[in-house]
């Protein structure tokens, strides 16, 4: 019970946290791109766009940062057995994240917000780039730590059976990390560009500031297209890597109970869960699973029943199969929505080529809807990754059931869970109100007056400086 509650809490708080993180990483990059454009061409609308989207970035960073604090503390609070067990290896990247990334991100964000009139243009531009780099570095360290839970490397077990780090480079060359990190960064860029595009689409549909928002919309599409195409390749490659190191995860994602060769891919099916191993396959595509999992036409894929037997032999009796329903559908939601977004990006790129993006009613309407997809895909991706690792908290080394804090009761966790959920609902509501409000605001004025504070506020009476 306590263990389940602790899992619910971690799942809730980390999924929530990761709604904001990709927006921060993606938008920080795009705002840096806009400001670079302004730096180079000196056109006032780029400065106005920088401030406008900078404000949206700041609203998101606020929630992303404070919900990140919870994550940082939660390991020790709810998972003390885990923390004691893995600290030697897992703590390192976390501490490096603080030292190398959080300081960079927060210090230069402060300099950027307040530095518009105080810093030379070039230095001020460097500040936003350092914010963008800091946010990407933070993802790097946390992904290195997370990948170690998926595929532990660079350690030896000491006399008590506790992992001791013996090769730090192994953590940063872990294939799960390399592909997983790229996957997360690309997902963040997809998220950021779709958020920016949706805001532009809203304004363009109202025929407001068509020139400026047209620029920003084109930039979003031009970032989105290569990123989403690359993402489909990277996501596929990550699946192959995981099939190698965590075969159960991928077999569960395909609801593949029996061994197969060649293996067909079920595009949609009913059943196939724990008590129904013979699903009604509505659509099956021959050979596709072999290609996805092994990269070859006729590659074999081990079924869950076989993997379960092997794991029992290796680790003793127990259930080594994660929830198949979650695995199967989170994989499909991610892949299908990703493909839709790729088509959407191609459509957008074609309109950019034709020069009619600003006037395309249907594309702009689709752009407004598309903004929800990255959040669904990001969540599905983490469900696939983390649920697929169960019953392990560290693959092959420690089970989740043994990882929670012995000194923390279920009452304690209920209290904290309810407190966090209430706070998160309030934060989410405030964030949404502000995002909608500032996303629909007019661009700030052309001139530099009233420009010394946070972005995009000059035209209104909202104080430029919001601290």
């Amino acid at each position: 019970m306590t263990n389940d509650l602790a899992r619910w809490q971690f799942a809730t708080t980390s999924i929530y946290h990761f709604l904001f993180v990709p927006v921060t990483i993606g938008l920080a990059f795009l705002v840096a791109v806009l400001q670079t454009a302004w730096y180079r061409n000196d056109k006032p609308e780029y400065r106005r766009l920088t401030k406008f989207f900078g404000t949206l970035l700041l609203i998101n960073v606020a929630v992303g940062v404070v919900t990140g604090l919870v994550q940082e503390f939660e390991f020790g609070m709810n998972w003390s057995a885990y923390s004691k067990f893995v600290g030697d290896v897992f703590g390192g990247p976390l501490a490096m994240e603080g030292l190398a990334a959080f300081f960079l991100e927060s210090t230069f964000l402060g300099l950027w917000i307040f530095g518009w009139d105080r810093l030379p243009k070039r230095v001020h531009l460097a500040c936003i780039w350092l914010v963008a780099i800091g946010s990407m570095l933070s993802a790097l360290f946390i992904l290195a730590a997370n990948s170690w839970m998926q595929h532990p490397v660079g350690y030896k077990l000491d006399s008590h059976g506790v992992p001791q780090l013996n090769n730090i480079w192994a953590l940063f060359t872990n294939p799960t990390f390399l592909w997983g990190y790229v996957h997360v960064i690309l997902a963040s860029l997809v998220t950021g560009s779709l958020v920016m595009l949706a805001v532009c689409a809203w304004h363009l549909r109202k025929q407001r500031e068509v020139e400026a928002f047209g620029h920003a919309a084109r930039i979003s599409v031009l970032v989105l297209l290569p990123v989403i195409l690359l993402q489909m390749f990277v996501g596929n490659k990550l699946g192959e890597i995981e099939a190698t190191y965590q075969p159960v995860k991928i077999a569960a994602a395909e609801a593949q109970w029996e061994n197969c060769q060649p293996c067909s891919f079920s595009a949609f099916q009913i059943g196939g869960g724990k008590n129904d191993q013979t699903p009604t396959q509505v659509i099956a595509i021959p050979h596709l699973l072999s290609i996805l999992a092994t990269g070859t036409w006729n590659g074999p894929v081990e079924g869950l029943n076989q993997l379960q037997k092997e794991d029992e032999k290796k680790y003793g009796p127990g259930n080594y199969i994660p929830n198949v329903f979650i695995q199967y559908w989170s994989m499909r939601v991610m892949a299908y929505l990703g493909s839709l977004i790729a088509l959407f990006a191609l459509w957008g790129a074609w309109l950019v080529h034709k020069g009619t993006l600003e006037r395309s009613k249907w594309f702009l309407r689709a752009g407004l809807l598309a903004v929800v997809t990255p959040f669904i895909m990001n969540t599905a991706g983490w469900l696939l990754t983390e649920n697929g690792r169960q019953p392990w908290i560290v693959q092959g080394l420690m089970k989740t059931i043994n990882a929670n804090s012995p000194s923390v009761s279920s009452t304690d966790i209920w209290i904290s869970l309810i407190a966090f959920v209430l706070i998160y609902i309030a934060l989410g509501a405030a964030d949404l109100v502000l995002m909608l409000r500032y996303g629909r605001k007019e661009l700030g004025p052309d001139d530099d007056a009233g420009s010394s504070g946070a972005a995009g506020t000059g035209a209104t009476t909202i104080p430029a400086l919001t601290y």
Partner: protein
Amino acid sequence: MQLHTIWFVIIAIFWVGFFVLEGFDFGVGVLHTIVGRTETERRVALNTIGPWWDGNEVWLIVAGAGMFAAFPTWYATMFSALYLALVIVLAALMARGVAMEFKGKGDGERWRRSWMWCTTLGSLLVPLLLGVGLGDLLHGLPINSSHDFTGNFFDLLTGYGLWTGVTLLSLCLLHGSTFLKLRTTDAVRERSRAAARPLGWAAIALVAGWVIWTRSVAGGPDVPQPCEVLAVIAVIFAARLAATDHDGWAFSASAVAIAAMVGSIFIDLYPHVMVSSTNAAYDLTVNNAASGSYALKVMTVAAAIFFPLVLIYQGWSFHVFRGRVKAPPAQPDQARSAMPAAPQV
């Protein structure tokens, strides 16, 4: 010096740095409605920490993450023992962090008032409860042979822990008032000076009492130790100087006071990191709580590379925004003229 001792010192530096820097942010957060009567003045007060508070808060994160990496058992036992206290700390940090960003972006009296209370209460609770937690490390908590906490929330509220929390809070408030006095002008500065007076007296009494109590809790000699003496002297200087126009000196003195107090806790703690009130044999020490030597070496290299960089660019940020924050001249043509349009740092 052995690696785990070096890391104990590094973690102590992170905690000291956190309270010296974020300490004035907490003080400003609590005092901003007292030194600022109008919305403009309150904004001026909060603007004094605007560019920095977020970076200052990272010191807490690296303190926690540093403990996780270098002393996993310490991190695990302490954070799970302080469970409900930390839930409140997190709630307070969240409320206050978001309030700083969101308050000025909404409309209406209710929106502003809600976030104002988040700032005030959040800034009050965090140093108070973290102070209780740090005091408890030294005082001792029920911890069993497998280094797990066996008590409940009320076991955290030891007399010594509470005194430590209140003392630390009073130092943060004094530190905040000397900081505000250093960074503002006119009415806000004068009210900061006025606030520093009672805060100074309270802090002197609390710190003196804390030193005496610490002597009986920490063991060792009955005579106050150098760092504790320094804390007392510094807080007296801070309180006295706060009345004068030597704003920089007053702020330096309150910074030294806060550093000396937090530093004393860690000096008295060493070589323990967490005392067990159940049995001295179950104490957590730098030896039995530390990571392996390879992990510590890696972390030492990482800290040696990144920490100086952090000091340089954070120091540069302090340099860029030095000088006093002033309210802009009134703009009667604007409906909400009470709002300063820009920081006149």
